[in-house]
């Protein structure tokens, strides 16, 4: 009986955090956000060297063959550092898609390149989590047509694309008829693009025919994204507590005011059970499959709520300084906001949770 991270996972956490402390300091994140310098590629190369890109790739394909909980550990570190990195898309969503639905040739072709950090695959799954207006992709004869809004990782080399039947396809960035239109949005640490397809050649992942692989990919994505929010929220609380201990008003550090203390206590009280839920949901996806989808929905919705509460409250504790760009606290605020809406907003995933149990 051991509910928690293993020694290896704690070590992984420390390693990633140390790397990010050194290489994804806020001033570097700002450069990425301002399009001033492509520190993103640099950070990803470093992370790949540490095995992050290879984390979920089977050993047979040059990977490490770890599990969702390990990925959650990494995501928590990334969220804590608001680090720009195509971890969720390339190392989690694409790898899961290939493992679940790719044929042997496809796996052999792409997984090793993901593992060594040389291939980035974005994810166009928004329509599988709620198609807006007329957006949507149709597939016929190895060609895609239509639009996918809100693809994650605008800078990827290839894209994992879900069509209207939830089949999964891989499209190369240079493919004929593919348009990649970056979308400006609040969280400058994660890039999003609209993809348009006009008879665009695509490779179907054959194991995705019944839509179940797409759902499984989204499950993992939701858990890992919740872990990212967890890391961001914990970091905001830490920053709030540190700031409150230094900031003086009325001749006292504001950390000594009961109102400020209670706000911080409420954040901690929201975060701790959320952490346990993230760990369990990650564990369940691999080890308790009958609970996996349900806990994936719940962790996504619950962390969206915890994250929103903490993002707001930590900003309030910082007072005016939290509202300015000076401390950059808003990078965390916006990352949490981004994670809330992508791969399914809270009302939607709660309804899915009800459906999984036959309640709706």
């Amino acid at each position, binding site marked *: 009986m051991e509910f928690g991270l293993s020694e290896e996972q704690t070590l992984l956490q420390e390693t990633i955090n140390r790397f990010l402390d050194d290489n994804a300091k806020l001033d570097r994140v700002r450069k990425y956000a301002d399009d001033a310098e492509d520190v993103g590629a640099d950070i990803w190369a470093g992370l790949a060297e540490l095995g992050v890109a290879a984390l979920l790739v089977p050993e047979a394909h040059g990977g490490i063959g770890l599990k969702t909980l390990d990925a959650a550990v990494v995501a928590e570190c990334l969220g804590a550092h608001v680090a720009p990195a195509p971890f969720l898309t390339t190392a989690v969503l694409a790898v899961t898609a290939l493992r679940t639905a790719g044929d042997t040739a496809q796996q052999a072709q792409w997984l090793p390149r993901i593992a060594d950090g040389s291939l980035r695959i974005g994810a166009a799954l928004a329509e599988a989590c709620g198609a807006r207006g007329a957006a949507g992709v149709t597939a016929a004869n190895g060609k895609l047509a239509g639009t996918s809004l809100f693809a994650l990782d605008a800078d990827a080399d290839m894209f994992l694309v879900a069509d209207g039947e939830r089949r999964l396809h891989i499209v190369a960035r240079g493919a004929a008829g593919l348009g990649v239109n970056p979308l400006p949005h609040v969280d400058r640490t994660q890039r999003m693009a609209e993809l348009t397809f006009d008879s665009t050649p695509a490779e179907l992942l054959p194991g995705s025919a019944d839509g179940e692989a797409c759902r499984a990919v989204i499950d993992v994505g939701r858990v890992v994204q919740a872990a990212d929010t967890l890391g961001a929220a914990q970091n905001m609380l830490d920053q709030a507590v540190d700031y409150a201990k230094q900031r003086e008003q009325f001749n006292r550090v504001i950390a000594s005011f009961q109102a400020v203390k209670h706000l911080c206590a409420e954040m901690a009280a929201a975060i701790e059970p959320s952490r346990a839920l993230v760990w369990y949901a990650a564990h369940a996806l691999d080890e308790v499959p009958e609970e996996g989808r349900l806990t994936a929905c719940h962790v996504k919705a619950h962390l969206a709520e915890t994250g929103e509460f903490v993002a707001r409250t930590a900003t309030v504790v910082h007072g005016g300084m939290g509202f300015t760009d000076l401390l950059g606290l808003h990078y965390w605020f916006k990352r949490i906001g981004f994670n809330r809406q992508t791969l399914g907003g809270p009302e939607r995933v*709660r309804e899915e949770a009800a459906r999984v149990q036959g309640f709706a």
Partner: protein
Amino acid sequence: MDLSYGPEYDDFRQEVRSFIAKHKHLAPAQQGVRSPRVKEWQQLLIQHGYAARTIPTEYGGYGAEPDILKGRIIGEEFAAGQVSTGLSGQGISMLVPTLLELGSEAQKQEFIRPTLTGEFVWCQGYSEPNAGSDLASLRTSAVLDGDDWVINGSKIWTSTAHLADWMFCLVRTEPDAPKHQGISFLLLRMDTPGIEIRPLVDMTMQPNFNEVFFTDVRVPKEQIVGHRGEGWRVANAVLGHERESLGDPNASLSRLNRLIHLMQTETVDGARPMDNPALRDRLMKFQARVMAMRFNDLRILSARLNGADAGLARMITKLQATELRHELEGFAIDVMGEFGLLYGKHPHVRDQGSWQNQYMYFLGLIIGGGTSQIQKNIISERGLGMPREPKAIVKAEA
């Protein structure tokens, strides 16, 4: 992450299951502390190590090594079998551990065994009308007069006072010492002259608690645990344990499941509450919170197994679990509408009125055992390292 208990414990679980299967027919249906059937059952449980498990045999226990998982397995299996785990109450959960740690050898000999067997039923006398959150400001006094302590004052929230043979209580024996250092921990018989017990009805309209009044109550001076003025330390040796027990997530889970059943069986205008998407959305929020608290609890368990302190995960439990339960019970009332208001004996009353009862009772628990405000102080100060409020310039005490 490893949620299995391992083969040794699987075997132990089998043993427990066999015991339950074999002896279930002997288990008492109700808890009454004075019933011979309850006492016999308790004896049987102690014999087999399912009660008083880690209490040394010399004091009437089973004498096993402490083993958190075995303790948990016993709890799980008895709950699953819906079989009583024997006597409970503040004597067993609080006084016995206190005596084992800080009692004299004579006190251990005198009090532990009869407490375990149910011969001595105890109540706790800590809180006073003017000493709630600020427990250390208690005023009930004990003055040494010859060989006796003479007690005057009153206690409140003494849940089993009307049933108890004995009380363990905190009294002020050193009026001139700083407030935490002026308290002693005494044991006294409830039939001592000068004690008056008044039932204290609460908002559930049940006398869950009592007030106890002391007028010149004389207690032999050796009935003190620890030294004079050490009572605060003695009491705090086991206080933490009580706080944690308020947040059992498995109880929340079973309430949630019961609520799901209700939402699938009641009907309003021909549709089930479960078919109402706004209610369903609220249900799903609660389900996620209950899950999160269950896994938080596993995390605490895991830390205890490793001899570690779960830190914040532990400190937030009382706050979060009592608020969650209160809100969950209130949500069930919303689901049932007017049916949720019914309370008392009537065929229309759902689940014996337990939703209303628990809705109120858990509001009491939000307040009791350290209010949510005090909990937040503790979390921020001990958990997050934030400073205590600066000492106020206080007016002289009246």
